[in-house]
């Protein structure tokens, strides 16, 4: 027996689902009270009315808590201190927040090029009042992911002067990109207190119900991590990820599909390749912040069942906003939903009103069934056009992923036979036209109204451990955790490095509180380091992944 609860906190509604052995038992939908997300969550939970709550094995929550705090600019100020070194001007890129540059430089091998200047640090303490205040300070160095020396030195110095400072160090985001690493460190520190409070409250509320099941939070990459282990910033954009996962629970494993979730004003589009959702090649962008957060490649386009249709000289235009419900459902403006109703593609809404609404777009003399029919078809074609455009752009992102090896170029992505899975309010009305345009079979998703909760409930933990080893510098680092350590093995390791990475991965998984079973190993890249025609060491890159996915299929 395995019992899962999934809850998705959306902008307007919070959805919940209870699944027992792959069968959906109960669902619930309650309005979201964004000022108190924990209460909303518990209300949704309550509404599920699960008979034996103590039998729940796992609760997975997808929440907009962090996303909204960032987009609504509700994060406390963070002092951002940069060891920016030489290179591209720091201000060549747009910085949505202020920063201070300090001297000190590290190079791409992690060697110290120039030491920091302590006098600058002393001045810093005085000028920005870091001596007493319990301020937030993010310290990020260029190439700190290769050597965190300067970050640690400054952190120690600041801690000695003011133990109440909340510090965050950039090297914990171990991927390259100083700019994104800086902003990611900044944001994660900025939202940490808000998130910690939420985690405490939620755990307390669940414990109060005598539920011992662990709580997981859904991440942007479609994986889940224990409530206490996740880095808060990783929880952004879990909603769109959940809708892709929901589709996976209804798919045959290992098929390739285009996922289309048509909402009232927004349509989310994702791509699944041989059963694995496509990850974005760049980190997530949230508001003005470019981050290193791994996320699924999802396109959200401002078109949906409630998008407004306007009369124009050329006929009509499909707007990107909503003005209440569709005309046929008692609203004031015609929408694609009216077109669907008029054409008999959906069975809800008033047929007469649908015709009336559409007629308002046409000139008086054209308000006949023939023209109404043409108009309704053209409206749906326009919706389909927008969706297909986004699908194409997503496919291009996949096909045009940069390749850095001969092998990769000679073995390009095979073109796949896709099928399309459509869910959401407008799914039924658009599926035929969409299937025709995409030239793929179309399947309707079920339980559209709670699909994100379903995706959350069935999310599998994702796991990545990417090793960068420099045997000459005797240093290794791990991208995902920023861990840096001394290498004591040989200068040219071969099998040795495999065992090393396996052990690292096991440690890291244990520390994150997740189990890894279905791990995929990338082949290692070996770069001989040559000095004066002599090989003096190697740089080795390797990685293991547990790709995003679901723990099983689900039926109603």
């Amino acid at each position: 027996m395995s019992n899962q609860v999934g809850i998705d906190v959306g902008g307007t509604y919070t959805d919940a689902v209870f699944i027992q052995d792959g069968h959906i038992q109960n669902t619930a939908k309650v309005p979201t009270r964004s000022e108190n997300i924990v209460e909303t969550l518990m209300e949704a939970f309550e509404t599920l009315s699960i008979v034996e709550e103590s039998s729940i094995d796992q609760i997975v929550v997808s929440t907009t808590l962090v996303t909204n705090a960032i987009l609504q600019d509700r994060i406390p100020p963070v002092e951002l201190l940069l060891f920016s070194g030489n290179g591209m001007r720091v201000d060549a890129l747009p910085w949505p927040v202020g920063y201070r540059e300090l001297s000190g430089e590290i190079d791409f091998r992690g060697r110290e090029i120039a030491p920091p200047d302590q006098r600058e640090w002393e001045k810093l303490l005085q000028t920005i009042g870091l001596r007493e205040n319990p301020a937030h300070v993010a310290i990020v160095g260029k190439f700190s992911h290769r050597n965190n020396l300067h970050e640690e030195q400054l952190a120690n110095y600041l801690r000695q002067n003011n133990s109440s400072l909340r510090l965050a160090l950039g090297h914990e985001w171990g991927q390259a990109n100083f700019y994104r690493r800086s902003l990611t460190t900044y944001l994660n520190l900025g939202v940490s207190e808000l998130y910690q409070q939420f985690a405490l409250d939620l755990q307390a509320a669940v414990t109060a119900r005598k539920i011992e099941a662990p709580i997981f939070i859904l991440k942007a990459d479609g994986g889940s991590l224990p409530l206490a282990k996740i880095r808060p910033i990783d929880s952004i954009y879990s909603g769109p990820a959940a809708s892709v996962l929901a589709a996976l629970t209804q798919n045959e494993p290992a098929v390739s599909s285009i996922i289309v979730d048509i909402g009232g004003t927004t349509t989310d589009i994702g791509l699944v390749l041989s059963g694995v959702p496509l990850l974005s090649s760049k980190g997530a962008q949230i508001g003005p912040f470019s981050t290193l957060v791994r996320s699924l490649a999802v396109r959200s386009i401002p078109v949906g069942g409630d998008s407004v249709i306007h009369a124009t000289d050329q006929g009509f235009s499909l707007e990107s906003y909503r003005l209440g419900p569709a005309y046929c459902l008692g609203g004031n403006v015609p929408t694609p939903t009216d077109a669907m109703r008029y054409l008999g593609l959906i069975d809800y809404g008033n047929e007469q009103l649908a015709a009336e609404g559409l007629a308002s777009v046409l000139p008086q003399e054209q308000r006949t069934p023939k023209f109404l029919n043409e108009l309704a078809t053209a409206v749906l074609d326009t919706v389909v056009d927008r969706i297909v455009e986004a699908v194409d752009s997503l496919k291009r992102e996949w096909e045009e992923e940069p390749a850095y090896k001969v092998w990769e170029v000679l073995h390009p992505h095979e073109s796949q036979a896709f099928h399309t899975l459509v869910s959401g309010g407008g799914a039924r009305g658009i599926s035929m036209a969409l299937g025709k345009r995409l030239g793929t079979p179309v399947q309707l998703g079920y339980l559209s109204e709670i699909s994100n909760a379903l995706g959350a409930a069935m999310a599998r933990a994702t796991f990545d451990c990417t090793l960068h080893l420099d045997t000459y510098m005797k240093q290794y680092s791990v991208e995902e955790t920023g861990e840096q350590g001394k290498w004591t093995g040989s200068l040219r390791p071969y099998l040795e490095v495999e065992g090393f990475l396996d052990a690292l991965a096991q440690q890291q998984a244990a520390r994150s509180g997740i189990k890894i079973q279905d791990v995929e190993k990338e082949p290692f890249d070996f770069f001989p380091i040559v000095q004066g025609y002599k090989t003096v060491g190697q740089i080795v890159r390797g990685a293991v992944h547990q790709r995003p996915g679901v723990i099983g299929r689900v039926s109603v």
Partner: protein
Amino acid sequence: MKRTGILFFPAFDWSLGDSHPEREERLLYTQEQLFEEGVLDLPQIKQFSPRVASLHEVLRAQALLPTPWSQTDSLDAHLIAAGSAILLGEARVRGEIGNGFVLARPPGHHSGATVWGNRGFCTLNNEAILVNHLRAQLGIKKIAIVDTDVHHGDGTQDIFYHDPNVLFISLHQDGRTLYPGTGFVNEKGGPNAWDQTLNIPLPPGTGDEGYQYVLEEWVLPRLRAFAPDLIINSAGQDNHFTDPLASMNLSAGGYGRITELLQPDLAVLEGGYSIEGALPYVNLAILLALAGEDYHHVREPQKPERPVLSLAPLKPYIQGLKQQHQTIKPNFTIQNKAYFPRGNWIYIPHSVYYDTEGFQESRHDYIRQCDHCAGTVYIESQRLSSLQKSSLVRIPFQACSECEQAGYDLWDHLLRHSEDMTSGLLQNQLHDKFFVWQRKEGLTQF
């Protein structure tokens, strides 16, 4: 916004040998530097992914001898570098980008009109394959190539030596002091393309100032006079003061300045083997300069140790060189063989050394003198110490009807009376058709 394209193909799984300068590690630190700087996040930068060039595209510029299929086993990485150049060049011509940087390995500028193997780390000439593709497929007429690699771009020179529509300028460390030992001011182009090749050999020790002086005094005016549709920079990085193979004194900033002055439509990486001390910084400076960003903060950690040649002695040297260049007049030998089609054929014999495998190629080039077009080119090439001998017949772009016919007649003769030939290529640039003939296999079209 003027966009800058980048095609980064470091070929992380390819090398010419474990400790060879052209090895996996070469662009590793460049990748670290570019990615860490966040250059790809600049809104004006667009990244492209590589593609493989076809043999058809290669044969448009170069004859693979004795036959294309005898070489294809080792061509993969080279075909990707050439394909990458084509891809970015197309994006430039179509206006998708304002300029671009093909940051790919392996390099190509030592690879000439006839290819028996790898020389100077090059097998295929990326720029030449690109240039001829743009002329054949995208209607580009006049292209200038400025080679700023420290070595003479002898391969590129060889391919375009008789082509009046391609201006080839090479700045390099004097051939008396460095591989490949060519590139002197008297190499000014073939009979139909006189003065369309410009070689500027520079004394060892030339630095940022010296380079800028030569560009402003000599290169830029020549470029302006030619008024090309497109400028391509063969951006070798071995003029850097840390380069282990050469003796020049450019800095990363100096490379940024060269890029700023040349304003190339496309920069294509060539050599440069100071993979830690120079490449990460030089590549960054070039890319920033192309993208219109400030490159003055790009600073390599090392300081020059070699003595920099100051401007005072360099100026008169360059002026003298320029005068010498102007006084050189064409002096060609006519040699008409019995079976040659009507006209005067200029004979230019020379030999080419393949350092990677250590063998010599003997070349006999014949060019049909023509006032109307680039002229038919007929090359007999022999790989010495082997019995293999091959021919290249080139009917040039925009060939006049007489030169076109001359090409067919020569090819016809080759097919009928070529007892001593192993193979041949009919490089019909005019109609974009390429035929390979081989004694055993017969004719194959590419």
